[in-house]
């Protein structure tokens, strides 16, 4: 029997969960991709990405493509484990 554990507050937020769900399916994704798929504003997305990065859930790499700045995000092992634990907890709540 599995006990109810509190849901990770960092993941239990619409935009951060959306970002993590997108990143779990790919190796890495650009900022513009995340912005388009989550239908969020650049400002809000930046803030949420920063929170995920500070928690060690994602890695953010800033570079250039030609003259344009390029931000690429990637899920980390810590992020992957946290996401899996979050989904497992969700399942317990639903069952």
């Amino acid at each position, binding site marked *: 029997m599995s006990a109810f554990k509190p849901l990770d507050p960092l993941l239990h937020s*619409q935009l951060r*969960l*959306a970002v993590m*769900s997108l990143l779990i*399916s790919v*190796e890495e*994704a*650009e900022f513009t991709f995340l912005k388009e*798929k989550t239908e969020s504003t650049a400002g809000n997305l930046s803030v949420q990405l920063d929170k995920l990065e500070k928690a060690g859930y994602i890695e953010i790499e800033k570079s250039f493509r030609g003259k344009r700045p390029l931000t690429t995000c990637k899920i980390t092992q810590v992020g992957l484990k946290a996401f899996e634990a979050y989904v497992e907890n969700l399942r317990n709540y639903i069952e």
Partner: protein
Amino acid sequence: MEKEMSSKESLTLITEMINRAKRETAGDGGFQMRLWGWVIAICNFGHFTLYKLGYEHPHYVWILVAPAAVVSFWKGFQIAKKARVKSHVSQVINQLWIMVFAGIMITLAFMPVIGYNQNPIILILAGIGMWTTGSLIRVNLVRGGGVLLLLAAVIAFMLPVSAQYLLSGVAMVLGYLLPGYYLNKSYRERI
């Protein structure tokens, strides 16, 4: 700014986002399959026809492979450069086909050693590529193409070398071009 979510809403959001990511990494719409399918089928049919017409150098038709390789690498590079996401599956598929291509090059380099039976070996290599690609992208028609290419290789080994070109041409159309066009159609429907 942040909406409180129920457990069910969370799961729905996860599923929706995973599906959106999947659509983006849907591949090149079978471009490489269509390109190589046409080129190799034309070369095979061309070689067979020229040989039957008594032309002395039917293998000249294979020169077509050189510009096709340039287009293939250029397009592959363009797609990779423009891609806003990198997926494990597309990277594995790229690596797989690089090795299939290398295998084909080695086979062609040793054509005299294998008594010019390169066609069935190429069909086997392409068949392995198709089966594995089909398994990775979960498209049974692509896996079926792989099976068909391997069956064609078995038949080809029992035929004289000249007839192998005709069989390889037919096998390329059915086992390579057909799945390529199917991917193109389903890609357009998804995007």
